[in-house]
Protein backbone atom coordinates (compact mmCIF):
# COMPACT_ATOMS: atom_id res chain seq x y z
CA UNK A 1 0.00 0.00 0.00
CA UNK A 2 2.87 2.37 0.78
CA UNK A 3 4.19 4.67 -1.93
CA UNK A 4 7.35 3.32 -3.55
CA UNK A 5 10.51 5.43 -3.40
CA UNK A 6 10.64 5.65 -7.21
CA UNK A 7 7.09 6.90 -7.44
CA UNK A 8 7.65 9.46 -4.66
CA UNK A 9 10.85 10.81 -6.25
CA UNK A 10 9.20 11.11 -9.64
CA UNK A 11 6.28 13.06 -8.15
CA UNK A 12 8.69 15.35 -6.26
CA UNK A 13 10.62 16.10 -9.45
CA UNK A 14 7.42 16.77 -11.40
CA UNK A 15 6.02 19.12 -8.78
CA UNK A 16 9.32 20.99 -8.38
CA UNK A 17 9.58 21.45 -12.15
CA UNK A 18 5.98 22.62 -12.61
CA UNK A 19 5.43 24.71 -9.50
CA UNK A 20 8.83 25.33 -7.88
CA UNK A 21 7.39 23.76 -4.73
CA UNK A 22 9.78 21.38 -2.97
CA UNK A 23 8.28 18.27 -1.35
CA UNK A 24 10.74 17.06 1.25
CA UNK A 25 11.46 13.47 2.22
CA UNK A 26 8.95 12.36 4.82
CA UNK A 27 6.02 13.79 2.81
CA UNK A 28 5.28 10.38 1.28
CA UNK A 29 2.07 10.10 3.29
CA UNK A 30 0.90 13.51 2.17
CA UNK A 31 1.59 12.68 -1.48
CA UNK A 32 -0.19 9.35 -1.16
CA UNK A 33 -3.29 10.75 0.54
CA UNK A 34 -3.60 13.57 -2.03
CA UNK A 35 -3.28 11.18 -4.96
CA UNK A 36 -5.67 8.47 -3.76
CA UNK A 37 -8.73 10.10 -5.39
CA UNK A 38 -6.89 10.42 -8.74
CA UNK A 39 -5.62 6.85 -8.56
CA UNK A 40 -9.07 5.57 -7.71
CA UNK A 41 -10.70 7.55 -10.51
CA UNK A 42 -8.14 6.14 -12.96
CA UNK A 43 -8.93 2.60 -11.84
CA UNK A 44 -5.37 1.94 -10.65
CA UNK A 45 -4.65 -0.77 -8.06
CA UNK A 46 -2.97 1.75 -5.75
CA UNK A 47 -1.19 5.11 -5.83
CA UNK A 48 2.20 3.66 -6.81
CA UNK A 49 0.64 1.81 -9.73
CA UNK A 50 -1.10 5.02 -10.80
CA UNK A 51 2.09 7.09 -10.62
CA UNK A 52 4.04 4.38 -12.47
CA UNK A 53 1.41 4.44 -15.20
CA UNK A 54 1.72 8.20 -15.70
CA UNK A 55 5.51 8.00 -15.45
CA UNK A 56 5.88 5.29 -18.10
CA UNK A 57 3.24 6.66 -20.47
CA UNK A 58 3.54 10.45 -20.11
CA UNK A 59 0.09 12.00 -19.94
CA UNK A 60 -0.03 15.79 -19.80
CA UNK A 61 -3.50 15.91 -18.26
CA UNK A 62 -2.63 13.44 -15.51
CA UNK A 63 0.61 15.31 -14.76
CA UNK A 64 -1.32 18.56 -14.39
CA UNK A 65 -3.84 16.85 -12.12
CA UNK A 66 -1.04 15.50 -9.91
CA UNK A 67 0.62 18.91 -9.61
CA UNK A 68 -2.71 20.55 -8.80
CA UNK A 69 -3.59 17.93 -6.19
CA UNK A 70 -0.32 18.67 -4.39
CA UNK A 71 -0.22 22.45 -4.72
CA UNK A 72 -3.84 23.53 -4.20
CA UNK A 73 -3.78 26.80 -2.39
CA UNK A 74 -6.97 28.81 -2.28
CA UNK A 75 -6.65 32.40 -3.33
CA UNK A 76 -8.79 34.97 -1.60
CA UNK A 77 -11.67 37.17 -2.67
CA UNK A 78 -10.88 40.88 -2.44
CA UNK A 79 -7.29 39.83 -1.79
CA UNK A 80 -5.42 42.33 0.42
CA UNK A 81 -8.64 44.35 0.81
CA UNK A 82 -7.25 47.86 0.41
CA UNK A 83 -6.81 47.85 -3.41
CA UNK A 84 -10.48 46.93 -3.82
CA UNK A 85 -11.53 49.63 -1.38
CA UNK A 86 -9.45 52.14 -3.37
CA UNK A 87 -11.03 50.86 -6.58
CA UNK A 88 -14.62 51.28 -5.40
CA UNK A 89 -14.26 54.44 -3.28
CA UNK A 90 -11.89 56.50 -5.47
CA UNK A 91 -11.25 55.02 -8.91
CA UNK A 92 -14.83 54.17 -9.89
CA UNK A 93 -16.21 57.57 -8.76
CA UNK A 94 -13.43 59.33 -10.73
CA UNK A 95 -14.19 57.26 -13.82
CA UNK A 96 -17.88 58.06 -13.43
CA UNK A 97 -16.93 61.68 -14.09
CA UNK A 98 -14.30 61.01 -16.74
CA UNK A 99 -16.39 58.51 -18.73
CA UNK A 100 -19.76 60.20 -18.29
CA UNK A 101 -20.18 60.54 -22.06
CA UNK A 102 -19.72 56.83 -22.87
CA UNK A 103 -21.07 55.43 -19.59
CA UNK A 104 -18.86 52.41 -20.05
CA UNK A 105 -15.66 51.13 -18.44
CA UNK A 106 -13.27 48.30 -19.24
CA UNK A 107 -11.15 46.56 -16.61
CA UNK A 108 -8.35 44.02 -17.13
CA UNK A 109 -7.54 41.43 -14.50
CA UNK A 110 -4.17 40.11 -15.66
CA UNK A 111 -3.03 36.83 -14.07
CA UNK A 112 -6.57 36.19 -12.84
CA UNK A 113 -5.88 32.63 -11.66
CA UNK A 114 -9.13 30.83 -10.68
CA UNK A 115 -11.28 33.95 -11.03
CA UNK A 116 -11.57 35.43 -7.55
CA UNK A 117 -10.09 38.78 -8.63
CA UNK A 118 -12.24 39.46 -11.72
CA UNK A 119 -15.42 38.26 -9.97
CA UNK A 120 -14.59 40.45 -6.94
CA UNK A 121 -14.27 43.42 -9.32
CA UNK A 122 -17.51 42.36 -10.99
CA UNK A 123 -19.40 42.39 -7.69
CA UNK A 124 -18.13 45.90 -6.94
CA UNK A 125 -19.07 47.16 -10.40
CA UNK A 126 -22.52 45.57 -10.18
CA UNK A 127 -23.20 47.61 -7.07
CA UNK A 128 -21.67 50.90 -8.21
CA UNK A 129 -22.18 51.17 -11.98
CA UNK A 130 -24.51 48.58 -13.44
CA UNK A 131 -27.30 49.60 -11.11
CA UNK A 132 -27.03 53.06 -12.71
CA UNK A 133 -27.27 51.80 -16.26
CA UNK A 134 -23.56 51.80 -17.10
CA UNK A 135 -21.80 49.12 -19.09
CA UNK A 136 -18.83 47.29 -17.54
CA UNK A 137 -16.53 44.76 -19.17
CA UNK A 138 -13.89 42.78 -17.34
CA UNK A 139 -11.26 40.95 -19.36
CA UNK A 140 -9.53 38.29 -17.27
CA UNK A 141 -6.39 36.58 -18.53
CA UNK A 142 -4.01 33.94 -17.29
CA UNK A 143 -1.20 31.85 -18.70
CA UNK A 144 -2.72 28.55 -17.57
CA UNK A 145 -5.65 27.12 -19.51
CA UNK A 146 -6.39 24.82 -16.55
CA UNK A 147 -7.06 27.67 -14.12
CA UNK A 148 -9.02 29.51 -16.82
CA UNK A 149 -11.32 26.51 -17.27
CA UNK A 150 -12.03 26.54 -13.55
CA UNK A 151 -12.48 30.32 -13.52
CA UNK A 152 -14.87 30.22 -16.47
CA UNK A 153 -17.05 27.64 -14.71
CA UNK A 154 -17.37 30.08 -11.82
CA UNK A 155 -17.69 27.31 -9.22
CA UNK A 156 -15.92 27.48 -5.90
CA UNK A 157 -15.49 25.09 -3.00
CA UNK A 158 -16.69 25.86 0.50
CA UNK A 159 -13.09 26.50 1.61
CA UNK A 160 -12.62 28.96 -1.25
CA UNK A 161 -15.85 30.76 -0.35
CA UNK A 162 -14.63 31.20 3.23
CA UNK A 163 -11.61 33.19 2.01
CA UNK A 164 -12.41 36.88 2.34
CA UNK A 165 -15.83 36.97 0.67
CA UNK A 166 -18.24 39.18 2.67
CA UNK A 167 -21.35 37.17 3.63
CA UNK A 168 -23.79 39.76 2.18
CA UNK A 169 -22.09 39.42 -1.23
CA UNK A 170 -22.14 35.63 -1.02
CA UNK A 171 -25.86 35.74 -0.34
CA UNK A 172 -26.53 38.15 -3.22
CA UNK A 173 -24.28 36.75 -5.94
CA UNK A 174 -23.91 32.99 -5.37
CA UNK A 175 -26.05 29.85 -5.48
CA UNK A 176 -25.18 26.55 -3.90
CA UNK A 177 -24.66 23.63 -6.32
CA UNK A 178 -23.86 20.46 -4.39
CA UNK A 179 -20.70 20.95 -2.37
CA UNK A 180 -19.82 24.03 -4.44
CA UNK A 181 -21.06 27.57 -4.96
CA UNK A 182 -21.83 29.00 -8.38
CA UNK A 183 -21.35 32.69 -9.14
CA UNK A 184 -24.64 34.01 -10.56
CA UNK A 185 -24.96 34.87 -14.25
CA UNK A 186 -25.32 38.60 -13.61
CA UNK A 187 -21.69 38.69 -12.42
CA UNK A 188 -20.41 35.88 -14.58
CA UNK A 189 -21.46 37.53 -17.83
CA UNK A 190 -19.43 40.65 -16.98
CA UNK A 191 -16.20 38.68 -17.19
CA UNK A 192 -14.57 37.35 -20.37
CA UNK A 193 -11.72 34.92 -19.81
CA UNK A 194 -8.90 34.39 -22.27
CA UNK A 195 -5.48 32.79 -22.29
CA UNK A 196 -2.57 35.24 -22.46
CA UNK A 197 1.16 35.08 -21.92
CA UNK A 198 2.21 38.48 -20.53
CA UNK A 199 5.48 38.29 -22.47
CA UNK A 200 3.59 38.18 -25.78
CA UNK A 201 1.75 40.96 -27.61
CA UNK A 202 -1.29 42.66 -26.02
CA UNK A 203 -2.75 43.47 -29.45
CA UNK A 204 -6.39 42.47 -29.66
CA UNK A 205 -7.10 43.06 -25.97
CA UNK A 206 -8.26 46.61 -26.61
CA UNK A 207 -7.98 49.62 -24.31
CA UNK A 208 -8.64 49.65 -20.56
CA UNK A 209 -9.57 52.16 -17.87
CA UNK A 210 -8.15 50.02 -15.06
CA UNK A 211 -5.58 47.21 -15.00
CA UNK A 212 -5.04 44.87 -12.06
CA UNK A 213 -1.58 43.32 -12.50
CA UNK A 214 -0.88 42.10 -9.01
CA UNK A 215 1.81 39.77 -7.71
CA UNK A 216 2.89 38.56 -11.12
CA UNK A 217 5.75 40.91 -12.15
CA UNK A 218 7.81 39.37 -9.35
CA UNK A 219 8.21 36.26 -11.49
CA UNK A 220 9.96 38.12 -14.34
CA UNK A 221 13.47 39.57 -14.76
CA UNK A 222 13.99 43.33 -14.99
CA UNK A 223 14.00 43.54 -18.79
CA UNK A 224 10.76 41.59 -19.07
CA UNK A 225 9.13 43.67 -16.30
CA UNK A 226 10.08 46.84 -18.19
CA UNK A 227 8.65 45.53 -21.44
CA UNK A 228 5.39 44.39 -19.78
CA UNK A 229 4.90 47.74 -18.03
CA UNK A 230 5.48 49.62 -21.30
CA UNK A 231 2.88 47.46 -23.04
CA UNK A 232 0.42 48.01 -20.17
CA UNK A 233 0.90 51.80 -20.54
CA UNK A 234 -0.11 51.53 -24.17
CA UNK A 235 -3.15 49.42 -23.26
CA UNK A 236 -4.40 52.02 -20.77
CA UNK A 237 -6.77 54.76 -21.89
CA UNK A 238 -5.68 58.31 -21.05
CA UNK A 239 -6.18 58.86 -17.32
CA UNK A 240 -6.29 55.10 -16.64
CA UNK A 241 -5.15 53.30 -13.49
CA UNK A 242 -2.74 50.44 -12.85
CA UNK A 243 -2.84 48.42 -9.60
CA UNK A 244 0.28 46.39 -8.75
CA UNK A 245 0.92 44.00 -5.86
CA UNK A 246 1.77 45.50 -2.48
CA UNK A 247 5.47 44.74 -2.86
CA UNK A 248 5.70 45.77 -6.53
CA UNK A 249 6.55 49.13 -8.07
CA UNK A 250 7.20 50.83 -11.39
CA UNK A 251 10.08 52.78 -9.79
CA UNK A 252 13.43 51.88 -11.29
CA UNK A 253 11.72 49.65 -13.84
CA UNK A 254 9.65 51.81 -16.19
CA UNK A 255 9.76 55.60 -15.75
CA UNK A 256 6.60 56.36 -17.72
CA UNK A 257 4.38 56.35 -14.62
CA UNK A 258 3.16 58.74 -11.93
CA UNK A 259 2.34 57.29 -8.55
CA UNK A 260 -0.74 58.38 -6.66
CA UNK A 261 -1.70 57.41 -3.11
CA UNK A 262 -5.30 56.43 -2.38
CA UNK A 263 -5.34 55.78 1.35
CA UNK A 264 -2.42 53.43 1.81
CA UNK A 265 -2.61 52.06 -1.73
CA UNK A 266 -0.29 53.18 -4.53
CA UNK A 267 -1.92 53.40 -7.92
CA UNK A 268 0.11 54.00 -11.05
CA UNK A 269 -1.01 56.29 -13.85
CA UNK A 270 0.67 56.91 -17.21
CA UNK A 271 2.66 60.20 -17.25
CA UNK A 272 1.14 63.07 -19.24
CA UNK A 273 -2.22 61.34 -19.21
CA UNK A 274 -0.82 58.50 -21.28
CA UNK A 275 -0.17 60.59 -24.39
CA UNK A 276 3.63 60.15 -24.24
Amino acid at each position, binding site marked *: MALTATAFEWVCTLVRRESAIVLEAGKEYLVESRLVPLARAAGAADVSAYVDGVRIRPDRKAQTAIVEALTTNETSWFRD*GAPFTAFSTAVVPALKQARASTRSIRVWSAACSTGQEPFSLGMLLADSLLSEGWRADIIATDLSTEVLDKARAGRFSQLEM*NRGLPAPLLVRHFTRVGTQWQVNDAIRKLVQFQQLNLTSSFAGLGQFDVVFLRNVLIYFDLETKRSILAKVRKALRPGGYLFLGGAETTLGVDEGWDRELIGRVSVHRPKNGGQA
Partner: protein
Amino acid sequence: MRALVVDDSRAMRKIIAGALRKLGYETVEAADGALALAALQEGPLPDLATVDWNMPVMDGLTFVTQVRANREYRAMTMMMVTTEAEHGQIVRALAAGAHEYLIKPFTPEALEEKLALLGLLPEVAGA
Protein backbone atom coordinates in the same frame (compact mmCIF):
# COMPACT_ATOMS: atom_id res chain seq x y z
CA MET B 1 -9.40 43.69 21.56
CA ARG B 2 -11.67 41.21 23.28
CA ALA B 3 -13.64 38.34 21.81
CA LEU B 4 -16.38 36.13 23.23
CA VAL B 5 -16.19 32.64 21.72
CA VAL B 6 -19.54 30.85 21.88
CA ASP B 7 -19.55 27.16 20.95
CA ASP B 8 -20.72 24.02 22.72
CA SER B 9 -17.60 22.10 21.70
CA ARG B 10 -14.55 22.67 23.87
CA ALA B 11 -12.35 21.53 20.96
CA MET B 12 -13.86 24.15 18.65
CA ARG B 13 -13.67 26.87 21.33
CA LYS B 14 -10.01 26.06 21.71
CA ILE B 15 -9.39 26.23 17.95
CA ILE B 16 -11.21 29.57 17.55
CA ALA B 17 -9.88 31.18 20.74
CA GLY B 18 -6.36 29.99 19.93
CA ALA B 19 -6.49 31.54 16.45
CA LEU B 20 -7.89 34.80 17.88
CA ARG B 21 -5.21 35.01 20.57
CA LYS B 22 -2.53 34.58 17.91
CA LEU B 23 -4.02 37.65 16.22
CA GLY B 24 -3.78 39.63 19.44
CA TYR B 25 -7.19 39.09 21.04
CA GLU B 26 -8.08 38.45 24.66
CA THR B 27 -10.73 35.74 24.72
CA VAL B 28 -13.62 34.64 26.92
CA GLU B 29 -15.53 31.43 26.23
CA ALA B 30 -19.14 30.34 26.64
CA ALA B 31 -20.63 26.90 25.94
CA ASP B 32 -24.12 28.02 24.86
CA GLY B 33 -26.20 31.11 24.12
CA ALA B 34 -27.51 31.50 27.66
CA LEU B 35 -24.04 31.36 29.19
CA ALA B 36 -22.89 33.85 26.56
CA LEU B 37 -25.67 36.29 27.54
CA ALA B 38 -24.60 35.88 31.17
CA ALA B 39 -21.00 36.67 30.20
CA LEU B 40 -22.18 39.84 28.43
CA GLN B 41 -24.07 40.95 31.54
CA GLU B 42 -20.91 40.64 33.59
CA GLY B 43 -19.10 42.84 31.06
CA PRO B 44 -16.98 44.46 29.75
CA LEU B 45 -18.52 44.29 26.28
CA PRO B 46 -16.30 42.37 23.84
CA ASP B 47 -15.50 43.84 20.41
CA LEU B 48 -16.41 40.55 18.74
CA ALA B 49 -18.53 37.49 19.41
CA THR B 50 -18.04 34.31 17.34
CA VAL B 51 -21.27 32.35 17.53
CA ASP B 52 -21.96 28.69 16.81
CA TRP B 53 -25.47 27.89 15.60
CA ASN B 54 -26.42 24.49 17.06
CA MET B 55 -25.96 24.49 20.84
CA PRO B 56 -27.95 23.13 23.79
CA VAL B 57 -30.00 25.44 26.07
CA MET B 58 -29.93 28.46 23.70
CA ASP B 59 -28.88 28.25 20.06
CA GLY B 60 -26.76 30.82 18.29
CA LEU B 61 -29.55 32.35 16.21
CA THR B 62 -31.57 33.05 19.36
CA PHE B 63 -28.48 34.53 21.00
CA VAL B 64 -27.88 36.85 18.02
CA THR B 65 -31.53 37.93 18.04
CA GLN B 66 -31.44 38.70 21.77
CA VAL B 67 -28.18 40.63 21.52
CA ARG B 68 -29.60 42.70 18.65
CA ALA B 69 -32.64 43.54 20.79
CA ASN B 70 -30.42 45.12 23.45
CA ARG B 71 -29.13 48.62 22.64
CA GLU B 72 -26.29 48.28 25.14
CA TYR B 73 -24.72 45.55 23.04
CA ARG B 74 -24.89 47.48 19.78
CA ALA B 75 -21.12 48.06 19.60
CA MET B 76 -20.36 44.33 19.55
CA THR B 77 -19.78 42.67 16.15
CA MET B 78 -21.19 39.18 15.73
CA MET B 79 -19.85 36.53 13.39
CA MET B 80 -21.54 33.16 13.04
CA VAL B 81 -18.98 30.34 12.98
CA THR B 82 -20.99 27.27 12.19
CA THR B 83 -21.33 24.15 10.12
CA GLU B 84 -24.75 25.32 8.87
CA ALA B 85 -23.89 25.80 5.20
CA GLU B 86 -27.09 26.48 3.25
CA HIS B 87 -27.66 29.76 1.42
CA GLY B 88 -30.95 30.20 3.30
CA GLN B 89 -29.28 29.79 6.69
CA ILE B 90 -26.77 32.54 5.91
CA VAL B 91 -29.66 34.80 4.91
CA ARG B 92 -31.45 34.02 8.20
CA ALA B 93 -28.38 34.75 10.30
CA LEU B 94 -27.69 38.07 8.57
CA ALA B 95 -31.35 39.04 8.90
CA ALA B 96 -31.22 38.24 12.63
CA GLY B 97 -28.31 40.64 13.02
CA ALA B 98 -25.09 38.71 12.46
CA HIS B 99 -22.47 40.80 10.64
CA GLU B 100 -20.44 38.00 9.12
CA TYR B 101 -20.63 34.27 8.57
CA LEU B 102 -17.81 31.73 8.54
CA ILE B 103 -18.59 28.13 7.65
CA LYS B 104 -16.88 25.22 9.39
CA PRO B 105 -14.45 23.84 8.44
CA PHE B 106 -12.31 26.96 8.19
CA THR B 107 -8.60 27.71 8.24
CA PRO B 108 -6.91 30.34 10.45
CA GLU B 109 -6.32 32.43 7.29
CA ALA B 110 -10.04 32.45 6.55
CA LEU B 111 -10.80 33.65 10.10
CA GLU B 112 -8.19 36.37 9.80
CA GLU B 113 -9.57 37.57 6.44
CA LYS B 114 -13.10 37.77 7.87
CA LEU B 115 -11.81 39.91 10.75
CA ALA B 116 -10.04 42.14 8.22
CA LEU B 117 -13.36 42.62 6.40
CA LEU B 118 -14.96 43.65 9.69
CA GLY B 119 -12.13 46.05 10.52
CA LEU B 120 -11.42 43.95 13.60
CA LEU B 121 -7.81 42.90 13.07
CA PRO B 122 -5.69 44.17 15.95
CA GLU B 123 -2.70 46.20 14.74
CA VAL B 124 -0.36 43.76 16.47
CA ALA B 125 -1.58 40.92 14.24
CA GLY B 126 1.13 38.41 13.54
CA ALA B 127 3.49 39.98 16.08
